[in-house]
């Protein structure tokens, strides 16, 4: 699956400083909202849905990676990526703070593509070598190219 096609360079932010889980979710939402595909969905609506989802269990998938994701009324799948400068507690099951964050927002009509994207990112990020690479990349272009290799 070509993950890179879902990730615009403007939706990638590296070495962002952030205080907590809510802060990083807000920054991810800001990146998502820059995409035209998002349409009329408001930031407060998006944040409300994402935070409500987080209440039903953290989307931290372990080993310092979190993948908040929701369905929303948008025209196509959109995605954002943040690598934070500091590690942030994301209430993950393994209790490890996170530094690598993906956010995926998708229309219900693209559910199978959405599940495939979530599954591919989760599989890639479970490998320590891949996480190490992501933590060392220098530019958004490198991040997108790296994710495009899988």
């Amino acid at each position: 699956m070509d993950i890179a096609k879902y990730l615009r360079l403007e939706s990638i932010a590296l070495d962002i400083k952030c205080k907590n889980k809510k802060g990083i979710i807000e920054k991810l939402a800001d990146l998502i909202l820059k995409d035209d595909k998002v349409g009329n969905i408001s930031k407060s609506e998006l944040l409300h849905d994402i935070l409500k989802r987080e209440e039903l269990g953290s989307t931290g998938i372990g080993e310092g990676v979190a993948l908040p994701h929701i369905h929303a009324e948008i025209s196509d799948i959109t995605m954002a990526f943040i690598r934070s400068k500091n590690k942030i507690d994301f209430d993950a099951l393994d209790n490890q703070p996170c530094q690598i964050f993906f956010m995926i927002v998708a229309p219900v009509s693209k559910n199978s593509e959405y599940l495939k994207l979530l599954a591919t990112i989760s599989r890639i990020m479970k490998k320590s070598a891949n996480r190490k690479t992501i933590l060392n990349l220098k530019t958004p272009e490198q991040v997108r190219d790296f994710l495009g290799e899988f």
Partner: protein
Amino acid sequence: MKILFIVETHQGAIKAAEQLFPLALKMNGDIIALNISDILIIKRISQSSDKSESEIAIEMEEDGWKYLYYIEEMAKNFGVKIFLEQEEGYFESVISKYVDKFQPGLLAISCRVSGGTSEIKNMAKIIESIRNNIKCPMLLL
């Protein structure tokens, strides 16, 4: 209470989730949904196909995640709290490891086998072995 739910990559897992989630709500239980890429199955499939073990492992892992995320969506609709886990290893060993790690109050396994008598016997053997090695109640769905 934590409920460790073993999610296999077949439709039976969805049916099992439909039965488990109302129960989890009643028990105020948090689900840890675990999919296991079983090394024995990876080897067996690889031997009977032209794909390498690593190719099979990637396919199984991704299928596992897809089922996990599908089940997560179901949990969300039920209002059940859920965490997702995926691990490669020997089926029984991974279950023992997670039981030791998270000390669940219940272990739920979807064990709807689609094959014939030998597959049912094999599943029964695995379940028996897990039952003998873990210290929490087990629910077969």
